[in-house]
């Protein structure tokens, strides 16, 4: 007599199990079609097994996590550039990437975004090649080199920009827009040539060679269209869906575009995620990036270790580095800081401030030569005085 879903639900309701285990249990039980007696036995055994599998109190989980992530470091490749997923975009992988993540760098060496597109209707962005292509051009930063040839006319003291019609059409940009943009950004005389098609002429404010040459340089930096910092956008079709990959990252700006799926769009710049989406998102992003880096190298590290590192980095509400300028530098113990890096300065500061080291951590206790308060050092046995028993024992000995 198999029991139904509702009975299972009531039987398992108060079990102190994590959600994923509970889910598998319910699925498995439903699939096997057990009766009530069997179910009771299963529940009993699962609870026992769960308790056995739990972490033991006083376990030095921090050190184990640090070692579990650090140890495979020796087996990782050094090569900075690899091709991941998208052949067109370079991404830092391996050890340098892992270092970058725990360093909590403000900007990673190869920022990259994965822009998922909305797929609400059948002809929404994600399924429409043309819409996607247009969006890609909207996002990618267009510089003058992409759409024109620039010549410096020294005799006339002006810059002549010959725009390519085809390129302009491809990027959906008009000659007026180019003119406007230069006007806004450079604050100089910009004119559309009356004689020649698709020609823009820029005259410097002051007719000097220096000014002209400087101008010739600075027009290359003007972003005519798209988002500053996004050097390239690549469109890829994955299954049914089109996805954009970008070199360079600007999450806040990209999320404003119509057609971008805000729930699935992400970047590999953890700090940017923190600023745009908050600390919880940053924590998840650290976990994701670290797991991906390790997995790509074919190394298996339990996710709990990575979670612990991510939680430690983010538990104060901001992303802190693992190292001198973050976690280790903010420890309360003078000895712990002195034993890590910049020894002398920490000691001098402590003296000046009259700091007190409470000797709670690991390093401090090792330094003063006493057992650390962790693991077996955290447990104390206290003998309960039972006078009558002692007396009886003394009698025996006598």
């Amino acid at each position, binding site marked *: 007599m198999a029991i139904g879903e509702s009975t299972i639900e009531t039987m398992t309701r108060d079990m102190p199990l994590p959600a994923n285990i509970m889910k598998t249990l319910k699925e498995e039980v439903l699939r096997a079609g057990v009766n009530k007696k069997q179910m009771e036995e299963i529940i009993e055994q699962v609870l026992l097994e769960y308790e056995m599998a*739990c972490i033991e109190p006083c376990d030095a989980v921090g050190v184990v996590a640090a070692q579990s992530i650090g140890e495979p470091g020796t087996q990782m490749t050094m090569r900075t550039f690899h091709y991941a997923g998208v052949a067109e975009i370079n991404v830092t992988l391996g050890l340098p990437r892992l270092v970058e993540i725990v360093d909590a760098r403000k900007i990673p060496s190869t920022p990259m975004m994965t822009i998922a597109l909305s797929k609400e209707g059948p002809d929404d962005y994600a399924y429409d090649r043309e819409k996607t292509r247009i969006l890609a051009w909207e996002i990618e930063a267009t510089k003058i080199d992409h759409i024109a040839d620039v010549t410096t006319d020294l005799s006339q003291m002006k810059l002549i920009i010959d725009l390519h019609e085809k390129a302009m059409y491809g990027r959906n940009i008009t000659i007026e827009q180019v003119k406007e943009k230069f006007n806004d950004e450079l604050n100089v005389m910009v004119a559309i040539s009356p004689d020649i098609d698709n020609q823009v002429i820029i005259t410097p404010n002051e007719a000097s060679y220096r000014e002209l040459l400087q101008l010739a340089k600075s027009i290359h930096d003007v972003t005519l269209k798209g988002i500053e910092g996004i050097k390239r956008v690549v469109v890829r079709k994955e299954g049914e869906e089109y996805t954009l990959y970008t070199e360079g990252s600007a999450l806040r700006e990209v999320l404003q575009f119509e057609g971008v799926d805000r729930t699935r769009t992400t970047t590999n710049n953890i700090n940017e995620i923190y600023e745009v989406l908050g600390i919880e998102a940053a924590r998840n992003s650290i976990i994701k990036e670290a797991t991906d880096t390790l997995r790509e190298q074919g190394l298996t590290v339990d996710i709990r270790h990575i979670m612990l590192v991510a*939680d430690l980095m983010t538990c104060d509400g901001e992303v802190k580095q693992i190292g001198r300028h973050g976690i280790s530098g903010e420890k309360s113990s003078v000895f712990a800081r002195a034993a890590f890096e910049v020894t002398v300065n920490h000691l001098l500061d402590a003296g000046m401030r009259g700091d007190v080291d409470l000797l709670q951590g690991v390093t401090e206790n090792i330094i003063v030569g006493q057992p650390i308060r962790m693991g077996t050092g955290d447990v104390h046995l206290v003998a309960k005085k039972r006078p009558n028993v002692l007396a009886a024992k003394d009698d025996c000995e006598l």
Partner: protein
Amino acid sequence: MANVPPIPKRISAIKFGLMSPKEIRKMSATSIDTADTYDDDGFPIDMGLMDTKLGVIDPGLRCKTCHGRAGECPGHFGHINLVAPVIHVGFNKIIRKLLRASCRKCSRLLLDVPQKAHFLSQLTAIEEIGHRPDDVINEAYKEASKVKVCPYCGEEQLDIKFEKPTEYLEDGEKLTPTEIRGRFEGIPDEDIKVIGMDPNNARPEWMILTVLPVPPVTVRPSITLESGQRSEDDLTHKLVDIIRINYRFQENREAGAPQLIIEDLWELLQYHVTTFFDNSVSGIPPARHRSGRPLKTLSQRLKGKEGRFRGSLSGKRVNFSARTVISPDPNLSINEVGVPIPIARILTVPVNVTPRNIEQLRVFIRNSGVVHPGANYVFRPDGRRIKVTESNKEDLAEKIEYNWMVERQLNDGDTVLFNRQPSLHKMSIMAHSVKVLPDKTFRLNPAVCPPYNADFDGDEMNMHALQTEESRAEARILMQVQENILSPRFGGPIIGGIHDHISGLFILTRFEKKISKPNAYDLLRKTDVERVLPEPASFGENGEPYWTGKQIFSQLLPKGLNMGFSAQVCSHCETCKKEECPYDSYVVIEDGELIKGTIDEASIGAFKGKILERIIKQFGASQGARFVDNFTRLAIRAVMRSGLSFGIADEDIPKEASIQINEVLGKAEDDVQKLIQSFINKELEPLPGRTLDETIEMSIMQKLGKARDETGNIADSHMGLENPAVIMARSGARGSILNLTQMAACVGQQAVRGERIQRGYAGRTLPHFAKGDLGSDAHGFVKASYKSGLNPTEYFFHAIGGREGLVDTAVRTSQSGYLQRRLVNALQDLEAQYDLTVRDTRGVVVQFKFGEDGINPTKSDFSKPDAIRRIVSDVVNREVE
């Protein structure tokens, strides 16, 4: 009970502070006035730097302060009265900030009362939550230094400029340390609190020294050279300089020397005091020894890896340890370590004399120096140590009584710690039990190589003999090898079969082997299983019984083990037939019997071994250890009986295969040439987002990579599972198919930074090629196989690729070492609590439940809910039966 150590006292806290001149004088044993150290008889001079009031280092002398001998006396500080105050270099930054933040006339902090109250409340708040106050303090300094007119006395503030190394200019006028000290003296206590200083323990004027503490002689011992000459410590040299200048300064001032000379001398005194504290201050030349070597002064002693903190306090040297070369011994259990007799005779274990062991200990004492388990030392209850020698051993054996202690030599069964550097994870130090063996190397079961990352090409390992009962108990329960088979990194076994273990069992269990009775018993001889064979699988012509290799292996498996999984040799067919696998690569175990499948890396290998993992989880660690012991012994026997050797002839491929390979390579080269031609003719379409140059490189790389793979496949198809190299590669014992194809077919493209080799001469890699040649052989494609031999250019390119690999490894080890150090340092204080939260030692919660589910990664079944499935199916199946 005299030799029972007292309950250790715990230091609960250590307070830091600055020393006031008063305090320095109070703790000083003597004032140091003369720069001389020893008189003509080599005796320390009174009031000199080696005054016996400061402690003694020469044997025979007694300290005048505490009357202790050398070794007993901890040393005592002295002091030098400086004629004029000097600045302590370490505090330059703070002195500068404070000068700018305090009034030049009334010395008060240049903040108004509400501001002060605001910063003070912020400081207390931050202290309460246990954060560092640096930001608030810096903010206070910044605010105060912005103020131009003192809010209390109305005095206008002048600009203070700091000049390296220790000069302060106020509007171009030099501020003397005396003036600075005067200003700081006037800062009221409540103002000091605002900038985060503790007025009771650190008054700002104490950052300017008027009295210099002289460290005890024990801190700066002099060494007597072989020639009988005394060589003084660097600190003593520096102190001599300070005293000399101090004296000269005094003389000159008393004589009324001109201001210029006084100032010069003052500066000189400042220099010497500065370098006494820190000899690497920027802006001044480091003080040097006569030989030109820079002196090692106070801060140099503390800094860096070999400094006091990292070198002497965080890491310590220990006794009762040994180090020697390691070598393998498959007959040892994984829980054992073979200890050479010479080491066993030196390392000792303390044993208390009791009525139960007194006779045994007497035997040990008498054996000392002759037979191995002897005793080296005897301790009387009063703590006196007596060495057991040839002459006194009989006496001592008679003399020992209860409560004495004997240090007996290391013997079989003792628990020791075994370690190999670099100690990257907790499995780098494990507890083994001793097995004393002849010869001079440590012996260990090759199955424990993976956690130590050890091999036997000359590796050395360390051993530590445990000295107390508590430590031995802890090591046995937590650190023994069998308790560490499962790695907390990924929850799978990190100890398991390697190399011959895998190929041995692979050969034994692959398909149906016919094994006669004597052979079967011989295979199982070294294992500890019951000597009862099951029903034979088949019978020969004369009715003699034969067993299969699978049956032999099954003898090692515990009853009640049920499993089914794909072996390493699995060729990943499109539809897995599971139990029906025609290649015998789906392992089925029913009730401890191997029914189908081949045992290889996926079953018993380190990092992967599924059977091993299941046995530990289902039957416990000691069964797991026993299983490893048994299968390693069986495997070695099996591979020994069948034999497995690999030679140059095993790379032979038939003629038609090499013709095929040449065809493939020739075609690939043609394709590359075609690509180059289209590139030159500008017909090549660039890949999206790539330049033309990048595109051609990528397409060539791709073409050649494909060609290499193809040649590999050709070679592979001509080598079957009878080839020992293929056996090793397929079973996961050693090497890969790629290694094999490089030997037999084609080595392939040599790469530097993931690209074809480009560097070398202008426009070409080697003078053998034309400039601008883009062809495959001009950029490091090696067509030859290792067996056929490389031509000179290929050889050269191969060396380039190989060198990159070496450099890569060297850089990586240092980088990952630093990463590991930082991670451990940041995370070491985290501990799981009784409520399964993770907190640091201050009590700050980092995770509310460890890993969100509280599960120990070691027992996490690779983070898959296998256990639940097992429980459900167990319960259901049992009910059906």
